[in-house]
């Protein structure tokens, strides 16, 4: 291992990148644009209103009494617009289909305080969106029936060990996007850079010099690690920071950055993503062996990147995955990065936490394996 040769490879990659504004944009502007879009969608999406109606088909007095109490409870609740004009079940169903109503509470003909079956009716085209109004209606319904029956309901206070119960989707997704983007873009750039090295004849030339395969992989890791480091710094600053820009003339006030709270030390989050990125460098070198064109590098995205997004804890916790997929998820580097990032950013863990140490250790191990694979596939015999 000759440090001068490693340094030469490192300097070359930095010089090459400096001359390549498109790749720099892919590395620094694309993630920010996507994260900003995601943050915008997630933080502004909750201001919708739902049209709710109560239909009382019961001829018994209990039905009318519950309906009145329920309407009083729903009226004026944030996000709920009460429609008192709906008379019967079939009108309600038609209005749901016409999108004039979002949710209907139906008290059936035989409703009484003894037979307390109630129907909550929605359209069913957008289960997640429709479900968002259900808890508020359910709560109002329960208290209406309880008051009518003369029963006092307990008060329930929601609390969490880490973070707060009113944490937004953004708070839990922020650690994920930070890790995922580092992985995705570093993999693509290294894969394509190394492929160019193979098809452009420069690898042949490199291998005709005394440089060793380990020196090449190390120089690449340092070079791309350097840019990945900057990328993670920029992305973390954008996710964690928030800069309010006041209105100026015709430009309205706006904010740069998402301002996500982190409970732990951002430097540890940074370390996790950096190790993840180093693994991605070597994976890119390794997989470039199996590609002949740049298009073929992109063909690895559904094989390499998408499963990590689906299984790595991006959308669902690993524990919720089917039994067969759990072992798969547990060998993916992104899984450990996301877990570690959540531990640090939400639970506030530091390097004294065995969970964070395990995540970091596994990531280092995976990076080492990919480095060995990368070095093994840089053959002197390239053609």
């Amino acid at each position: 291992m000759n440090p001068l040769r490693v340094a030469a490879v490192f300097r070359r990659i930095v010089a090459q990148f400096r001359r390549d504004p498109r790749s720099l944009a892919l590395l620094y502007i694309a993630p920010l644009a996507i994260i900003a879009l995601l943050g915008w969608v997630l933080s502004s999406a909750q201001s919708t209103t739902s049209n709710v109606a109560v239909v009382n088909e019961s001829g018994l007095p209990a039905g009318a009494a519950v309906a009145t109490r329920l309407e009083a409870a729903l009226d004026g609740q944030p996000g709920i617009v009460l429609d008192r004009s709906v008379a019967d079940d079939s009108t309600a169903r038609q209005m749901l289909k016409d999108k004039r109503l979002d949710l209907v509470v139906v008290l059936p003909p035989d409703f009484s305080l003894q037979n307390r079956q109630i129907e909550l009716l929605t359209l069913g085209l957008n289960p997640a969106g429709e479900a968002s109004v259900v808890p508020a209606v359910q709560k109002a319904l329960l208290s209406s029936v309880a008051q009518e029956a003369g029963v006092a309901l307990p008060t329930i206070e929601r609390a969490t060990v880490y973070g707060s119960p009113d944490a937004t989707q953004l708070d839990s997704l922020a650690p994920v996007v930070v890790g995922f983007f580092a992985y995705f873009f570093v993999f693509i750039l290294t894969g394509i850079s190394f492929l160019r090295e193979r098809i452009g004849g420069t690898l042949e030339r490199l291998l005709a010099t005394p440089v060793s395969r380990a020196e090449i992989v190390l120089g690449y890791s340092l070079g791309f690690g350097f840019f990945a480091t900057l990328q993670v710094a920029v992305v973390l600053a954008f996710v964690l920071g928030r800069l309010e820009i006041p209105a100026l003339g015709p430009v309205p006030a706006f904010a740069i950055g998402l301002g996500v709270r982190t409970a732990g030390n951002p430097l540890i989050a940074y370390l996790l993503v950096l190790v993840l990125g180093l693994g991605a460098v070597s994976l890119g070198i390794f997989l470039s062996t199996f590609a002949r064109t740049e298009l073929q590098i992109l063909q690895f995205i559904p094989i390499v990147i998408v499963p990590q997004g689906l299984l790595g804890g991006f959308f669902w916790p690993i524990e919720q995955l089917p039994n067969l997929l759990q072992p798969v998820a547990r060998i993916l580097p992104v899984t450990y990065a996301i877990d570690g990032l959540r531990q640090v950013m939400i639970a506030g863990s530091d390097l004294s936490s065995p969970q964070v140490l395990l995540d970091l250790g596994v990531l280092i191990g995976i990076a080492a394996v990919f480095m060995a694979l990368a070095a093994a596939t840089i053959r002197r015999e390239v053609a």
Partner: protein
Amino acid sequence: MTIGPNPPAPEPLPSPAVEALGLHKDFGPIHAVDGVDIALPPGRIYGLLGPNGSGKTTLIRLLTGLASATRGRARVLGVDMPSRANLARIGYMTQADGIYPELSVWENLTFFAALYGQTDRADLLKSLEFVELETRTGTPAMQLSGGMRRRLSMACALAHHPAVLFLDEPTVGVDPALRVQFWDHFHRLAADGATLVVSSHVMDEADRCDELLFIRDGHVLAQGAPDDLRARAGTANLETAFLKFATGWTAADSGSSAAGTATVPDAAGPEETDR
């Protein structure tokens, strides 16, 4: 313009400088190099001549250790190839330019030179002067013409003063005046003790070599000085000589001896670029 091999090792170079012993390279059913035995003494320019797909590039890759032999041995300066340490004494100019298009002329040169431990700026500048690119140091390689890229590629191969130089089609795209300078320089390098193995398909270039190796179908058809080969083939034309040796070998393929002196000149010409 004094770019000679490194003088610090006064011990005599092992003889021969480049050696192949029963060298074979198969790609599946194809015998790209099919039993080559050569021993090339140092300080001379050797020309590898042969048509497209004759095995010239594969032979060079075997000799530089970039490909591993199916059978036989490749030795350079007395060391069995592949040998990473030995690569420090070898220069290789590939058929593709093998330079980084985003990097400037100077960055390309200093990068490759640094891999050989060569960081002497004044000396590197001399390499650039030799290929007449000294005024282009800051130009990105992608903005150079094809001939300029070829010259940069050559500077990158020479910068560390190798004792053995493999040049695969070095003068493609280089204008005639500079081509003459290149060959003058090759002869100076050889006079200083360097061994050059140059693949080419241009016959007037072949005449500038000290010795030629006619190659076809992975075999060495004939080896000798250009005049000697012409005399043996009984022709004043090297191209005709090649064709005579080529058909001679084809005729003798099922028989006993290779490299004969057959006379029917109707095989494919050697004018195509090797790949």
